[in-house]
Structures are given as structure tokens and as C-alpha cells.
């Protein structure tokens, strides 16, 4: 499909050799939204979880220490920036790299917690993220082999071949695994029991935004 059909009028291109960044209202909107969310999350403070204790009327509070808070805030900002980068980039391999970075950082955000359950989930999600780097990078490499370019601007003008479609399917599997959406969500679900809420939100937000962008990219490649 044409770029203008998917994203609106092209506002301009930034040619950097082989990498051509192009701007449409769609990309700019997503980019700005992610940046605003990142700024909000960077400014916010963590919640304190209150858990009811079993068998008594008492409750226990789970709060986040200062050093852990700082690390987690930093990783959340990195995650937000990587998501913003994935929104605006015009290069197929850069998108895969940004998505892989989001996967690593998501594991990093919850890695410092003390709950064994959360660490279990982070481990499972990390394994899935690592396995799905095969279809993710493999799909991008296959599209490169089929067309000789990774620039989405050029790819939109090339008619789809069976190899490109196969590459796009691999790419979809890779993105689904790396962001932990539907078929793989069970690995990731327990991660949200981590205390320190606003930083956990970026895990949701990044996978949501990346999927929207990924659908646009796949439509550009396939149609």
C-alpha cells in the first residue's frame, strides 16, 4: 500500500545515504504521544503496594528503594525513547533493533525486584524474546535479500514477491514474541505484579505502540 494511504501526506524526507527517514502526520503523532508519556513517567513517583496478609487483619506495604527507583526510572526512559525511535524511523532494520531494545529493557525494568514469581516471569519472557530474535532479524534479512534495500520509502514502491511475504510473516512472529503480545502474553503476565507502577506502564505502552507501527510497516511491505 502507498505510504500516503497509510500515514497521510508526506511532510518531508531526511535522506541519510541509504537510510531515508520520511515524516507523515501518523508518525509524528505517535512519536509525540510516546515522548509525552515518557516525560510523564520520568516525572512521576512510584506507588506503594499494599498487600492484605492471609489470616490476620494486618497489611504489608511493598515500596521501592531509592537506588532501585533510579535504575528503574532510567530503564523506563530508555524504553520510552526506544519506542519513540521505532515510531519515527524509516529503516526496517532500525525498527527491529528498536524492538529488540524494548525487549531487553522490559526485562531490565523488572529484574531488580525481590519476588521470585516476577523473576520467573521475567526469565520466561526473556527466553521468548531471545528466541523470537531469530524470526525478527531473519525476516528483516530475508526482505533485504529479496529487495536489496531496507528503506521503507523504497520498499513501498516494490511489488511484493513470495519471499518478501514470507519475510514479513517472520517479522510479525518476531515482533509478537519480542513485545510479548497475544500468543506469548502468558510468559509476561506475572511481570505486572512488580511494585512501582508507573514504570511498569511503559511495558504495556511500548508493546501497544510498537504493534500499531508494525502493522503499518508490514502493510507497506506486503501490499
Amino acid at each position: 500500500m502507498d505510504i500516503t494511504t497509510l500515514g497521510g501526506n508526506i511532510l518531508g524526507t531526511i535522506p541519510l545515504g541509504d537510510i531515508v527517514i520520511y515524516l507523515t502526520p501518523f508518525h509524528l503523532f505517535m512519536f509525540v504521544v510516546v515522548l509525552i508519556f515518557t516525560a510523564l513517567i520520568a516525572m512521576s513517583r512510584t506507588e506503594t503496594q499494599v498487600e492484605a496478609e492471609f489470616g490476620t487483619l494486618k497489611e504489608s506495604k511493598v515500596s521501592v528503594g531509592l537506588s532501585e527507583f533510579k535504575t528503574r526510572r532510567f530503564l523506563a526512559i530508555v524504553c520510552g525513547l526506544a519506542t519513540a525511535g521505532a515510531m519515527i524511523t524509516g529503516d526496517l532494520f532500525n525498527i527491529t533493533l528498536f524492538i529488540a531494545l524494548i525487549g531487553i529493557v522490559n526485562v531490565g525494568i523488572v529484574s531488580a525486584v525481590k519476588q521470585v514469581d516476577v523473576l520467573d516471569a521475567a526469565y520466561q519472557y526473556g527466553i521468548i524474546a531471545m528466541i523470537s530474535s531469530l524470526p525478527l532479524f531473519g525476516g528483516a534479512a530475508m526482505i533485504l535479500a529479496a529487495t536489496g534495500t531496507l528503506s521503507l520509502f523504497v520498499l513501498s514502491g516494490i511489488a511484493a514477491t513470495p519471499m518478501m511475504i514470507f519475510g514479513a510473516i517472520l517479522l510479525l512472529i518476531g515482533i509478537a514474541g519480542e513485545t510479548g503480545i497475544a500468543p506469548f502474553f502468558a510468559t509476561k503476565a506475572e511481570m505486572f505484579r512488580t511494585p512501582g507502577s508507573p514504570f511498569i506502564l511503559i511495558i504495556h505502552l511500548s508493546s501497544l505502540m510498537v504493534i500499531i507501527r508494525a502493522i503499518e510497516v508490514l502493510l507497506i511491505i506486503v501490499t
Partner: protein
Amino acid sequence: MVLIPEVVPTITASLYLPAVYLAMIVGFLGLTGIAIQKKDIHILILTDLVGLAMLIMVAAVGTDLAEALVLPGLVVELAEIMAISEILISREMRKIENAEPIDRVIARKHSVFPFPLKLDMEIMTTAPNFIALVMILYGAFLTGFTGGAVAGGGILFYIFSRKARGLPVIVIDGIGAISGFSWCLWIIGFVLFFIAPQYWLLLLFMAACGLFLKVASKLGLIGAMMREEYKKE
């Protein structure tokens, strides 16, 4: 549409499909292994096999662009395996902390346990200064990624052997900052390369030296991190 230039021999061009099939077979074998294995540490190691299949798939394209893509793929793979193994270690330590008293724990096996390293080899008392110096000089001569790896290996060996002998190592807290700044040098060199190609020699050296410093200091950082393992003893 023919994308392969004529200078490429046919046999090289025809290797693409076998390489992709090979990558898929390797990936499939890795996934089968992961499905069969029960211990977490074995699963983690087998996951690396799947990552290798990914590298084969990217490298099969065989152009210079693909070569530029192998490196980030490798880095992502390494970063992920390091992050996950760190999680595995901290999880096992939590499990040990929360475990029942010692007499009841004996029957339970942990799949991984961080233990302090103990090494007593002669090469660590006689050679480190000389070998480290030679490796750093040779690495500086090579520059780029290879040079960084060689020089970093020298630094790593030096710190490692001093630490194994129990000697104090000057704590270089800023070594991460060196890595970060030289990485910026590399990136700036790359960006300017696109904007002002007429200064290509200067920018090439900027990128090469930045990459050299980055890789060397990063490997040195691994050596500095290794101290923490000794302290645990």
C-alpha cells in the same frame, strides 16, 4: 530483477538458499532442545543456539549491508543472554535466601549457583604485564572493532590475573564513562560521514578510534565487574 552484481561468482550467489535452510534447521533443533530440557540453565544455553541461527540467517545475505547488520544482531543477542542470566542468578539467590533451614534443603537441587572463582596458574603470576602491554599496543595499532577486542582482552587478562593473586586493582569507576564517550565519538563520526563525505578520512579515524576505545573499555568493564564475584568469597 537481478540484484547480484556480475563480479560475484555463481557458486557464492547459490549459497544463499542452503544457508537459510541451515539456519532454519539449526533454529528448529535449538527449539526442540529447549522443549525437551527441564533445567533453566540448559534452556538458556540452548537459546543461544537459536540466536546463532539468527546470525546465520543475517550473514547469509552476504552484502556489506548485511555485514553491518550482523554486529548489532550479535550485540543484541549478547545483551539479552547477559540480562537473562543475571535474572536467573538473582532468582536462584532469592530462592536460597527464602529456603527452609539447611537440614531440609539438601534434597533440593538448584539449577545454577553463583560461586567464587579460584584459580592458581603460573601464567597469572609471570606474564600479565607483558602480555597485557603487547595486546594493548597491538590493539591500538589495529584500531576498530578487532583492535578493541584485542586490547580489551589484554586489559581483561591483566585485571583477572591480578585479582586472582589477591593484589589490589585500581578501581576505575569512570571506565563506563570512557566507553560511553567513545561510543558518542563513533556515532558522531558516522553521522558526519553522511553529512560531509569529503572529510571521510578524518571521520573514518574518528569512528575507528571511538570503536576501539569503546570495545576495549567495555571488555575492561567486564574485568572490573568480575571483582564483585571475588568479594563474595
